[in-house]
Every structure is written in structure tokens, then in C-alpha cells.
């Protein structure tokens, strides 16, 4: 685990190649039947950067990710992917952008009628007909090996544990080699060793493929390792945003409590 942390530290120094943000949400409002969930949130991530989103249960972290990939429509505000506002875009146009995004659902959302391997192959079979069947198979194997699930190819999602489903979900999210990674609690429900492996994988992807990632997590330890910046949400707003050290130096009560209790 120390290695992962070292990598993160080293990586943080070399990263700053800047450029326009890959994902930028601005002044985002979203409510459900009178319940205000997001109240003017603004956040952004650049290439090769990981933003960890923290916050208490029910603050709208999952809703934020769902908005970014267009599964929910915001009441107002803009969501820019590579500078292009996706709010109000037709489904087919959004589709083009979604191919560049990998999404891990909070509860994995694996297709329960398909095997583990078929789940990971699913995006490839729909979008990468240009590569041969055997090559697709190889890629599925490699992806499953990366998340430590190489032994469970033919199993059905209902026959593997929640943590294993999460890892398969991550492999599926990576199948199309996305530029943007949106992960909803990737290490929740995982043992410490698997968590550390997933953290290492996220760091490796960030380093090798310069992905822009937004990772929702309750795991401060993991957030500290993988993220360049952290954002703490509360009551539909960003309470604080910055490096881990910035959070440590903050006087805000909620931030202090968050750090103390984690």
C-alpha cells in the first residue's frame, strides 16, 4: 500500500500539464419532486487528473455522476465534456460522448442474464466490431485479470459476491478504453487488499492513459491515494475542494468531523 501512496505522490508532481478541463459542470441544479438534491454545484477535472467526491449518504453524489453521463437531466446548469455542453443533446449525440466514458454503478448493475465475461464483452460487441472476435476475447481476459477476476469467467453475476460484482463492473467500464472514468464507490464492500489493488489499478490507468476520473468514495484513505483533488459535498453544494492537505487545514466543522471519523 505504501507503494501506491508513493506513486500517487510522485505522480502528483509530474501531472500538472493543465489544459482545458475534460469534464466541467457548472452551477448544476437538480431536484426530485420538490426535494432539492444539487444546489448549484460546479466542479471540473482535467486529463490525467482524479477528483474524489466525498459526502454523507444522500447528498447526491450518485446523482452527480448520473447527470454527467446523461442518465438524469439537470434542472439548470451546464455539463461540458471536452468543452461541449451535453445538456439537451439528442440521444445519438450523447451516445458518441458516452463511448468515451466508463461508468461504474454503485451497485455494479451487471447484466444478470449474461456471464461475467459476457458482461465485460458487451460494450465491445456493440461498439468494436472492427476488432476480431478472438481479439475481443483477449481483451476481456486482460480486463478481468486487471481487476483480479480472471478465475470467474463463466460465472453468473448472481453467483459472485458484491465486491466481485464491483470489480467486474469496473472491468466493463474500462472495456472501451475510455478517456473519462466515473466510478461510484469502487472500493465499497471490498476487503482492504482488494481495495488497495483497485486503487493501484486506478493510479495505473491515470498514469498510463491519462484518464480524467471522478471517483465517489467514502474511503478517505483510498481518496488520499488516488485523488489529486477532493471535493466534499453537503446539502447540494461543494463545502470544500482541494488537495488532501487543504482539507486537513480547514476550519469547517463538517470537514473536521469527516477527517476525524474516517
Amino acid at each position, binding site marked *: 500500500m505504501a507503494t501506491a501512496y508513493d506513486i500517487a505522490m510522485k505522480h502528483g508532481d509530474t501531472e500538472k500539464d493543465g489544459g482545458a478541463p475534460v469534464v466541467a459542470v457548472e452551477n448544476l441544479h437538480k431536484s426530485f419532486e420538490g426535494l432539492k438534491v444539487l444546489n448549484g454545484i460546479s466542479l471540473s477535472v482535467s486529463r490525467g487528473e482524479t477528483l474524489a467526491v466525498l459526502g454523507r449518504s444522500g447528498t447526491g453524489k450518485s446523482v452527480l455522476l*448520473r447527470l454527467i*453521463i*446523461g*442518465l438524469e437531466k439537470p434542472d439548470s446548469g451546464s455539463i461540458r465534456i471536452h468543452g461541449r455542453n451535453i445538456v439537451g443533446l439528442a*440521444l*445519438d449525440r*450523447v*451516445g*458518441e460522448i*458516452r*463511448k468515451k*466514458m466508463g*461508468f461504474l*454503478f454503485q*451497485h455494479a*448493475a*451487471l*447484466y*444478470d442474464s449474461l456471464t461475467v465475461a459476457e458482461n465485460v464483452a*458487451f*460494450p465491445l460487441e*456493440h*461498439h468494436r466490431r472492427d476488432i476480431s472476435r478472438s481479439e475481443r476475447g483477449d481483451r476481456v481476459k486482460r480486463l478481468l485479470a486487471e481487476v483480479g477476476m480472471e478465475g470467474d469467467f463463466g460465472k453468473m453475476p448472481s453467483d459472485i459476491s458484491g465486491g466481485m460484482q464491483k470489480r467486474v463492473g469496473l472491468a*466493463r467500464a474500462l472495456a*472501451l478504453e475510455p478517456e473519462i472514468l466515473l466510478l461510484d464507490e469502487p472500493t465499497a464492500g471490498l476487503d482492504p487488499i482488494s481495495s488497495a489493488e483497485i486503487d493501484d489499478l486506478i493510479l495505473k490507468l491515470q498514469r498510463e492513459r491519462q484518464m480524467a476520473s471522478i471517483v465517489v468514495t467514502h474511503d478517505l484513505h483510498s481518496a488520499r491515494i488516488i485523488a489529486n483533488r477532493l471535493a466534499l459535498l453537503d446539502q447540494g453544494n461543494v463545502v470544500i475542494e482541494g488537495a488532501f492537505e487543504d482539507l486537513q487545514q480547514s476550519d469547517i466543522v463538517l470537514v473536521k468531523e469527516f477527517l476525524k471519523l474516517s
Partner: protein
Amino acid sequence: MTTAASSATGLVNGFFEWFGNLGIFSWQVFRAAVTPPFEWRELIRQLDEVGSKSFPLVVMAGSAIGVIISLEARYSLSRFGAKSMFPATLVYSVIQVMGPIITGLVVSGRVGAGIGAELASMKVTEQIDAIEASAINPYRLLAATRILACILMLPLLTLATDACALLTGWFAQTLVEPLSFHQFIQDGFKGSTFSAFMPQTFKTAVYGLIIGLIACFQGMRTRGGAEGVGRAATNSVVLASLFLILADVVLVKFILVVFP
């Protein structure tokens, strides 16, 4: 009094809202269905699914209906001394009236509930969202293929129902009054061309549309966990069966006017 009135307006509003949403849903499915890429593999899988799930049921239902109509027809025809009309009566009742509607109701119970429950459980476990997040249009992949499979399979299943009903109907009759099957068929179809029976069989494609559309719609709009899944399955069957019978009123009239 006022609560009754307000709940009545609520019901009426809900009804129109449901229809409005069904209209929007239909349009989205239609648009997805007529633009590439076409999901051939999923369509073939669904054809197999609809056909293989329903076939044993329509065989049994058709066989039972044949015997029932046979018994009833023999009894009433002999009362009017019109026993020679038996084959024609059986053929007419089965092909024009009972075969299509029985097939429609059986398939709506089996396939309607199946599609409703399957899509509803995919919806509440975010699998449909996952499809969308993978840049795949769920209306095209899930709804269009299932609806088309229902449209294509219903007439074929109706033919199976008809065949079974005629066979058992003839068999029940021949136990009492021996009559060769060949003779029975010849008498039964005498004076009517084969094409006279086509509209009644092919109208079941409309039943298929109703079953597929309503089941997909109910499934894909489901909310609220396991309870929602059960509700979607029940509603799919109830609404599909109801609309199927209502549509039949219009279809029968339409066929009488267009194919006199």
C-alpha cells in the same frame, strides 16, 4: 363527495398521463427501430423466446378449445337439424373467432408478464441505465426487438392454435360420428376461399404489437424495488389483455368493412 370527485379527476388525469407517456414511449421505440444499427441477434433471441415459451401453451389451449367448440356445436346444430353444418361451423368458430383471441390472451399472460417482469427488474437494478451508459439505445436493444418478436410470432402461434383446435375438434366429433379428416376439412372450408381467413389470422399481429408495447412500456417505467417488479408484471398482463379485447372490437369491425 368532494374526495370522490377529486379521486375521480385524479384517475382521469392519471389515465391521460399514462396514454401520453405511452405515446412518447412508442415514438422513441419507433424511431430507434427504424434507424441502424439493427439488433438482429437480440431479435432472433426474442423470436425464439416468444415462440418457445408460448408454443406449448397455445397447443394446449387450442386443443381444449377445439373439443369445447366441437361439443357445443354438435349439441346446438343437432337441435336445429343442421348437423351437416358441423365442419363449417367448427372451422368458422375456430379460425374467425376463438383461435386469434385465445392465442392473444395466452401469449399476453405468458409473454406479457415475462417481458414486463424482466424489463422491470432490469430497470430497478439499473441494468437499463448501464446499457444506456454504454452508449447503446435501450429502446432499440430491448423494446424494439421484443415488440417486433411479438408482432411476428403472434400470427404463427395463432396458426398453431387453429391447427390444434381443428384437429381435436374433428377428433371429438369422429368418436361419435366417424368422419375422415380429409372430408372434414373439405366440408369445413367449402364455399370459403383460404384468403377469407387471412385477415383474422394476421390481425393478431396487432395483438402482438399491443402485448409487446404495453409490456415493454410497463417494464421500462418501473420504479421501486421488488414490489415495483411484481406490479409491472401484473399490470402488463391486465392492461395488455384488456386493450387486446378492446382492439378486437375495432379490428373485427374493420375487417368486416374492408374484407366483406
